[in-house]
């Protein structure tokens, strides 16, 4: 299927989980497809990066469920920052480990999982619906009862996959992409390259096959589909482009120019504009780097 087909299967008001971490291996081509859609009022569950920022900037987000939103090498995400300071986005702020536990509970079809993280902090204050649970065993310890974070849909980006949805990561960290898929009613995987099933083990060992076809409902081939976040070893983070994004996001006029230059067309036109950006920086004598 195409990235736009994925966006077409989503509905306004859905809870959508997005894999990756910060500015690392984010399903940005799928995010860009949402930017072209009329989807509204999404609740986004994410170890947040520019996925969250872009969707907020496009007016698609009602609530963010996260422990942070960061571009890694640029600590603060400008769109998220502005939306919070203007009060235009709702936030469920959780400890990173609580978010993990909420996804694990949803994946296991449990109502909650106990966790120590959150106790004593202001996380319960800003999430008054959070409850604690007491161990029924002799220790009697009181813990946070982290509720399951059930997702209507999950979006992840991996290095390789076959057409059936067996997906492979080749970088250093799986992040929580398998849990996002299992926590979701429908899971969509974009990848750098769709390969024949028989070729999957040519790129990495069996344990690099992070998700299987029972966990995935749709596969999109999207070369450069994590740009400008990292997708090691296929490509690193495009730091120059990320810096351009963050600078543009800092003021409304700059953002309008960025949108017109990069986000007005389809994915192919985005990738062409990125190559022009990279080529103009490298100088006319050097070929533009592949995404």
């Amino acid at each position, binding site marked *: 299927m195409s990235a736009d087909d994925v966006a077409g299967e989503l509905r306004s008001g859905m809870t959508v989980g997005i894999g990756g971490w910060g500015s690392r291996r984010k399903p940005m081509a799928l995010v860009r497809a949402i930017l072209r859609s009329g989807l509204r009022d999404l609740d986004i569950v994410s170890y947040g990066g520019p996925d969250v920022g872009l969707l907020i900037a496009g007016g698609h987000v009602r609530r963010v469920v996260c422990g942070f939103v960061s571009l890694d090498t640029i600590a603060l995400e400008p769109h998220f920052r502005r939306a919070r300071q203007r009060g235009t986005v709702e936030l469920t702020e959780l400890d990173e480990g609580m978010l993990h536990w909420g996804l694990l509970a949803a994946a296991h079809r449990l109502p909650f999982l106990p966790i120590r993280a959150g106790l*004593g902090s202001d996380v319960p204050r800003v999430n008054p619906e959070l409850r604690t649970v007491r161990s029924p065993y002799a220790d009697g310890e009181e813990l946070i009862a982290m509720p399951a974070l059930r997702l209507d849909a999950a979006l992840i980006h991996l290095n390789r996959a076959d057409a059936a949805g067996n997906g492979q990561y080749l970088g250093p960290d799986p992040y929580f992409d398998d849990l996002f898929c299992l926590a979701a009613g429908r899971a969509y995987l974009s990848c750098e390259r769709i390969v024949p099933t028989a070729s999957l083990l040519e790129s990495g060992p069996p344990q690099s096959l992070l998700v299987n076809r029972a966990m995935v409902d749709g596969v999109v081939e999207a070369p450069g589909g994590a740009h400008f976040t990292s997708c090691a070893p296929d490509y690193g983070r495009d730091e120059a482009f990320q810096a351009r994004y963050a600078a543009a996001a800092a003021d409304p006029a700059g953002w309008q120019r960025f949108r017109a230059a990069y986000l007005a067309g389809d994915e192919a036109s985005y990738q062409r504009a990125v190559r022009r950006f990279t080529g103009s920086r490298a100088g006319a004598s050097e070929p533009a780097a592949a995404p």
Partner: protein
Amino acid sequence: MTTPAPDSRPGPSRAEVCVVACAEAWRGDGTILASPMGLIPTLGARLAQLTFAPDLLLTDGEAHLLAPEPANGNRVTEGWLPYRSVFTMVAAGRRHVMMGAAQLDRFGNQNISCIGDWARPRAQLLGVRGAPGNTVNHPVSYWVPRHARRVFAERVDMVSGVGYDRAAALDPRAARFHELRVVVTNLAVLDFQTPDHGMRLRSAHPGVTAGDVTAATGFPLAVPGEVPVTRLPTAQELALIRDRLDPAGLRDREIP
């Protein structure tokens, strides 16, 4: 090229004193994951691993555990630690993190989330990240590169990392792993070794007076009668910092 004799080199800079003070945070921790946030704590953790704390585990900031760097500078991977395993190490207590703090109060409550009213903050920062879980699961230290009243505040706006008063109010079983070790700043080393676990001046860096520290602190700080001076780097530590860990001198740009 000849190596200059140790005594012909300039004395330790403030940044180098801070690196060693950060390194000292992990002394005696044994075989645990050291997680430094930021340049100076990272140099400190690596220095500790190369000298008095060789058992420490350190990551490359991604998912590789790197063995102590051999003298030839080659990178040696000794393990794999993706985020899901970091969370397990946190819950298992096999970790000591040194985090930053936008605000820190007398009992060590830390804020990295936002400044102002949480519902509509004046300044949105990172979010609580792993601070709530870290502070109730394993030892935590803090690094503050600019010691100022704005940071060392009477109250913090969003408690991310849990302080001693909050931990004391919890079920003792829930708080049994809570331990704030030290706070290292550009001026001093602080700790919580007082009867009520209020913050105490442990040592002032060379050239800094107790008055300098209290003037830059927005709450009453416990100050001993005789304030020790933060220890200076040894010649070996100085050589490691300058020649191996940070030959580009990035430390002196962070702490002039």
